[in-house]
């Protein structure tokens, strides 16, 4: 009896240990870094560059800051699948502060990370900031479950012609892109008319 109990107990121990150990060392520090809370409409209004793209390359480049110190920046290359706003070529690169180089490692709390082949919608500024994304990380939506998911775990969706963030995936990725194209086209036309 003791033998059986020992075996069962050890099996459970092993499973729990492996699970906890994996989780323990995969956890990263996550507190701090703050940014303005933006609605989807606010993000659309601020966006200078928008596209549906796929990550093709993630590399770290060293850049010299104002104090003449070299710092790592992560360069993310995208294949532009659908250009939504801005004059974009077939590929586009965005730079994010931080990264791991041979010389140094800089980790920025809550900074989005990227993997090759990930597909996403990007709302960004056409400028060099620590994060070029609108709303620091709010302007990033990754394709998952045929839907676009924000870094905060919400899903970008269209309801009654309005963009909203919802709690569940609606599997409407193509519809959202089409609606975004229309929305940005209307915005550009409006601004063009205003300019005239």
């Amino acid at each position, binding site marked *: *009896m*003791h*033998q*059986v*109990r020992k075996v*069962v*107990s050890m099996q*459970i*121990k092993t*499973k*729990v*240990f492996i*699970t*906890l*150990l994996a*989780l*323990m*060392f*995969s*956890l*990263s*520090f*996550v*507190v*701090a*870094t*703050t*940014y*303005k*809370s*933006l609605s989807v409409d606010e993000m659309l209004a*601020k966006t200078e560059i928008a596209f549906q793209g796929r990550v093709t390359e993630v590399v770290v480049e060293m850049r010299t800051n104002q104090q003449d110190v070299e710092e790592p920046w992560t360069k993310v290359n995208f294949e532009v699948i659908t250009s939504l706003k801005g004059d974009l070529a077939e590929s586009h690169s965005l730079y994010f*502060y*931080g990264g791991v180089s041979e010389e*140094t*490692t*800089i*980790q*920025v*709390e*809550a900074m989005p990370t990227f993997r090759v082949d990930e597909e996403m919608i990007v709302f960004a*500024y056409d*400028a*060099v*900031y*620590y*994060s*070029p994304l*609108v*709303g*620091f990380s*709010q302007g990033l939506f990754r394709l998952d479950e045929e839907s676009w998911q924000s870094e*905060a*775990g919400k899903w970008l969706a269209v309801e009654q012609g309005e963009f909203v963030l919802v709690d569940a995936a609606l599997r409407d990725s193509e519809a959202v892109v089409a609606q975004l194209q229309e929305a940005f086209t209307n915005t550009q036309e409006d601004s063009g008319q205003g300019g005239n």
Partner: protein
Amino acid sequence: MVARAFLLTLTIFCCLGVVSAQEQTTETSNPSETTTGAQDSGGEASAVEDTSENTLQLNNSQQDSTTVVTPEDFNPLNIVYRIAGENESFKADVEEAFETWQAASVGAVEARQEENASVIFKAVDVALMGPDTLSLKVQNYPETSILLTESLGETGANLYKSALLHEVGSLAGLPLKESGVMSRELSADIVPSVSVEEARALEAQVNTAKEDLNRNGRVDFYDLVELAKNYTEVPQNYSADLTGDGSVNDDDVKQLQDLYEFSDPVDVNATVADETQASSEATTSSTSDQSVNQSPEQAISDAAKAIAEQAAQIGEVVQEKELDSADENPTQDSNVTESSSEEENSSDGQ
């Protein structure tokens, strides 16, 4: 790597000892309830009465004894920092943020500036921060830099001060919330102040045994997990800096180990079904309560705990079934018993 290997070894050691028992999911009394806070009616924490008369009882259901944590055991969070540059207004703003937390939670935070502190507040130009980023926490070993920009204009003053309060609160180990200054996404209409809830959360950091990092009333495996999450020379969560030396290292592991409680063996007479249901309800309640304010990492951590709890319960159920099976099948049981007896004899012989 050596230090991490040490921690890994300790984790293995501790894990093998603790997971055979059921983890208690019941919460101990809320530490903050033992304090007598005096808050104004506006919901902001203006002051909290001295807690020196209070004691917190940590009821340990696994043991007959009850650990009483006296005020002498309280461990004010000791934050050492410095402010880069000569910007006097920025310096005043950072100090004000610390003072706000200190006023809201008397005795919970001790902060001081030192020239060689590894936590550095830096005022940076808005040019690189961008129009939406309020503060950045940047790890560049061995330093942790907290970057803020003052150049947000009058309309952004509240956001700037709220970001400062957020950064100080996070240094003190407070978790992310969905609203208030401990939210990562700060809304334009935010008021830069510390709420009663936030002040009490900070008090709770010190009103339990300092080794009880997850504040559940016991120093156990889950506290080791919490410590492991902060195991670095530059602590992100000062509550894990048990020795107060400014870093989370092997000394902190040793201190936690000294109070570490190995769980008792599983009580095979316990009613598994009842406990499973109770645990399930507790887990469900906990999940629903926390889901709103959880960060993904918190969720992962909680998931790990839930997995451990469920695994322990599964282990109990299996053992129960084995017991039942053994009762129903005496032949098989006798074989096991014989084998076990032989092993015991062998052990005795050794």
